C-alpha cells in the first residue's frame, strides 16, 4: 500500500501503526519529506503532488511497487494564507493522484476528509448523516478545495468499477500530540466566541482517527463515513474544560476583527470559520460503527480532556516537545 502525505500527523501515525501490524506487507511513503516512523517495511519516495509531472511519477511508482491500496492524506490540517498553493496541493494534487491511480491497477482508495465540510448552519439537523450535502462556505478555499477533492474521489469510485473508494470524514481531531488550528485556538488564554451563541461541538481523539484509517485499510468497505467520538459538548463547556476564558464578541465585530487579525497573520483561521462558533455542525458516526466496524475509544469529552492535559503542560513549559 501507499500513503500520500505520509509526513503529516495522520500519515506518520498510520505508518507507525501499520509497521507493527501484520495486515500490511509493505508501505510506500509519498511525501516531500520522510515520515519519522518509517521502518523496515516502508519505502520512502520524495514526491510533491504540486509538481506538474507528479501524475507521471506517481503512476511509475505505483506500477513499480505493484501497489493495490492508496491512502490519501495529503491535505492541509489548518487554513493557510497560501491559498493558491493550497488549491494546487489539495484539489489539483488529488486530481493528479487519482489520474495516476486510473492508469494503474489500484483496487482501493482511502481518502481523508472532514465533517467540517458539511458547514455550520442553523438549519442543520443535530446530527448530520453522510447523505447530507457538503454546504461549507465555497468562498473559503480551505473548504472548497477539499470539497473538490472529495468530488474527484467520488467520481473515481463510481459504482460499476471494481474499485473500493472509502472516504473518512473525521470530526475535528484533538489529542495530546496533534497540532492544528483548533489546538492553537483553544490554546489561547482568551478564546474568542460569538456573543449569544453556544453551538454543540464534537471531537475525535487522534488515536481513534488514526485507527479509523487502519480499519479502512484492513477491511474492504466502500463508502463515505463520519468518524466521530461519542457525545457532544457546548462550546462554552469546551472552553471551560480547557481552563480558558471565553471572549464573546458580536458576530459583526468578530468578522472585522478576525478578518484583520487573519490578514495580519495573528489569527488561526479566517472569518469563515466563525460560522462554527455560531451554528451547529455535528456529524452522526453511526454508519461507521455499523458498517465499517469503527468503535471510538474516546468520547469527545475525553479527547478534549486529553488535549487539555497536554496543553496545560505546554503552557507552563513542562512539555517542550512540539506537537506534530
Amino acid at each position, binding site marked *: 500500500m501507499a500513503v500520500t502525505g505520509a509526513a503529516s500527523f495522520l500519515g506518520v501515525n498510520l505508518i507507525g501503526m501499520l509497521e507493527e501490524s501484520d495486515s500490511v506487507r509493505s508501505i510506500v511513503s509519498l511525501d516531500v519529506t520522510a515520515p519519522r516512523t518509517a521502518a523496515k517495511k516502508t519505502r520512502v519516495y520524495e514526491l510533491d503532488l504540486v509538481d506538474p509531472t507528479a501524475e507521471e511519477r506517481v503512476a511509475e511508482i505505483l506500477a513499480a511497487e505493484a501497489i493495490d491500496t492508496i491512502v490519501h492524506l495529503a491535505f492541509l490540517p489548518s487554513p493557510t494564507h497560501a491559498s493558491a498553493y493550497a488549491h494546487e496541493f489539495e484539489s489539483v494534487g488529488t486530481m493528479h493522484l487519482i489520474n495516476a491511480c486510473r492508469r494503474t491497477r489500484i483496487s482501493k482508495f482511502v481518502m481523508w476528509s472532514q465533517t467540517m465540510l458539511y458547514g455550520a448552519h*442553523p*438549519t442543520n*439537523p*443535530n*446530527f448530520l*448523516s453522510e447523505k447530507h450535502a457538503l454546504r461549507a462556505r465555497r468562498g473559503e478555499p480551505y473548504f472548497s478545495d477539499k470539497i473538490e477533492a472529495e468530488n474527484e474521489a467520488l467520481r473515481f469510485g463510481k459504482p460499476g468499477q471494481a474499485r473500493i473508494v472509502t472516504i473518512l470524514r473525521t470530526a475535528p481531531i484533538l489529542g495530546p500530540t496533534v497540532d492544528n488550528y483548533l489546538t492553537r485556538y483553544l490554546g489561547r488564554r482568551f478564546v474568542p466566541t*460569538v*456573543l*449569544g*451563541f*453556544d453551538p*454543540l461541538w464534537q471531537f475525535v481523539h487522534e488515536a481513534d482517527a488514526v485507527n479509523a484509517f487502519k480499519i479502512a485499510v484492513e477491511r474492504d468497505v466502500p463508502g463515505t463515513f463520519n468518524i466521530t467520538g461519542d*457525545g*457532544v*459538548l*457546548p462550546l*462554552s*463547556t469546551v472552553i*471551560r*474544560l*480547557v*481552563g*480558558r*476564558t*471565553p471572549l464573546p464578541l458580536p458576530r459583526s465585530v468578530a468578522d472585522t476583527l478576525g478578518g484583520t487579525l487573519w490578514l495580519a497573520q495573528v489569527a488561526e483561521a479566517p472569518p469563515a470559520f466563525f460560522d462554527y462558533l455560531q*451554528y451547529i455542525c455535528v456529524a452522526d458516526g453511526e454508519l461507521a460503527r455499523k458498517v465499517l466496524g469503527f468503535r471510538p475509544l474516546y468520547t469527545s*469529552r475525553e479527547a478534549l480532556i486529553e488535549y487539555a492535559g497536554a496543553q*496545560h*503542560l505546554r*503552557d*507552563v*513549559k*513542562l512539555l517542550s516537545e512540539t506537537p506534530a
Partner: protein
Amino acid sequence: MKRQGEKKKRKPVPRAKPEGSRDNGKPTAKAAPKSRPARGKPPKRRRGGRKAHSGTKPPPGARGGLAPAEAELRSGLELEMGEAEVASEEVPELGLGTRMVPPNVIFNEGVDSSPPPRSSTGGDVAEQIRALEARLDGMMRGARDLPQAAPEAPKTESVAAPPAEALSDSAYFEQHWGRTGLRNRSEEIDDFGLDPEYEKKTRRLSEFLYKSYFRSKTEGIGNVPADGRCIIVANHSGTLPLDGMMLRTALRLEHPVSRELRWLAEDFLFYLPFAGVFLNRVGAVRACPENAERLLAKESLVAVFPEGVHGIKKLYRERYRLQRFGRGGYIRLALRMRAPLVPCAIVGAEETNPLLYRFESLASVLGLPYIPITPTFPLLGPLGLVPAPTRWRIRFGEPINLDSYGPEAADDSLLVGRLSDRVRSSIQQMLESGLRERRSVWFG
C-alpha cells in the same frame, strides 16, 4: 552511585511538573544530588531539619514534615548503606509528587503523608540513614512508575483549602475559573443539548409559571402513553411561544410516570442570539425530520406544533383558529416511525401577549419573522413582553393510531393530507369545546 546520578538527571522532568517551572534549569550530574534537598521550599526544610536534630518529635501533620529526610539525603547518598527493605512500602507515598497530581494539591499531600516515617527515625543514625535511603529509592521509583502513582491522584482531589503557595500559581486560578464558569452548567449534556443542571435552575421559573402564574389545568393526561415513542400535536400560540415549555412542565408534574418531553422549535429561533441557546439547554430541539426521527427512535415523547411560525404570529382576532398544518411532515413522521399521535389543545395561551399588528418588512432585516405590536410591547419596552396571567387549560385527546397504514404510506401525499386534516379538525374541536367551557380568560 553512577546509577543514581543518572536517574537524578532524568528526574527533573517528571518531578518538576507539580512544582511549576521553578527548576527548569537542568542540573548537571554532579550538582544533581546536591540540588536535591534544595528543591521546593528550602527555608522550611531547614527549619524542620533542625527540629529533628534536637530530638523533639513534631506533631504529625506539621508543616515541613518532609524536611529532615531531605536534609540528610546527601549523607545518605554518600554513605551508600545497604539496600533498604522498606522501599516497597514507601513507594506509593513518595510517588505522589509525580505527573498526575494537580499543582495545587501536591504540597498538602506531602505534608499529610510524611510524618509517620520520620517519627520512626528517632535518634538511631544508622536507622535514620536506612530510612532515608529507602525514601530516596522510593522517590526515584515513584518518579518513574507513573502508572503506579496515578491511582493515588484522585484521593488528593478532595483537599478543601489550597495552600497559600498554590494561590500564587496562575495555573491554579485558571483551573478554578474554569470550574466556577461551569457552576450553573452540567459538564455533560445529552445529544440534543439539554443541560440537566441548567434546566434544574430554570425549573423553578417554569414551575412557577405553570402552577401559580397560569394556574394551568390539565385534562386527559392519561391519554399520553406511559412509555414508548409518541408524538403530541398541539396548537401553537402566544407571541412569545411559552407553550412548549409549559407542555414539558405539565408532563413532568402531572403525568403519572412524569414523562420527559422534548419539543420541536422553529428554525428562526436558532438564528437568534441567546434564544436558541437558551431553548436548546432547556429541552427544545430544532424542528427537522432527522432530529424528530432520532428522538422517536430513542422512544421519547416529542411535541410538535405543526402550525409553526404561522401559529405564533396570528393576530388576536384570529385566535384559536388553527392555521395550515404545513405539509403534514408530522404525519409522515408518525407513519415512518410508527408512533401514535396525541392531539392536544392549549387554551389560554393566545391571550398572554395579544398580537394587534406585526411588522414584517423591518423584521426581516433583524432576522426575525415579525416584530410584534401588542397592547404593551413597544410601549413598555422589554417589560411589555411579560405574558399576561391568563388561566391555561391543556387538554390531551384520545391517541390516534396510524399503525393500520404501513410505513410506505408516508409517500402517499393524498393520504398524508387527509390524515393531517383529521388531526387538525380534532384539535380544532377540542379548542372550541375548551373555549365554550371557559367562563373567564383570567379565572378559567
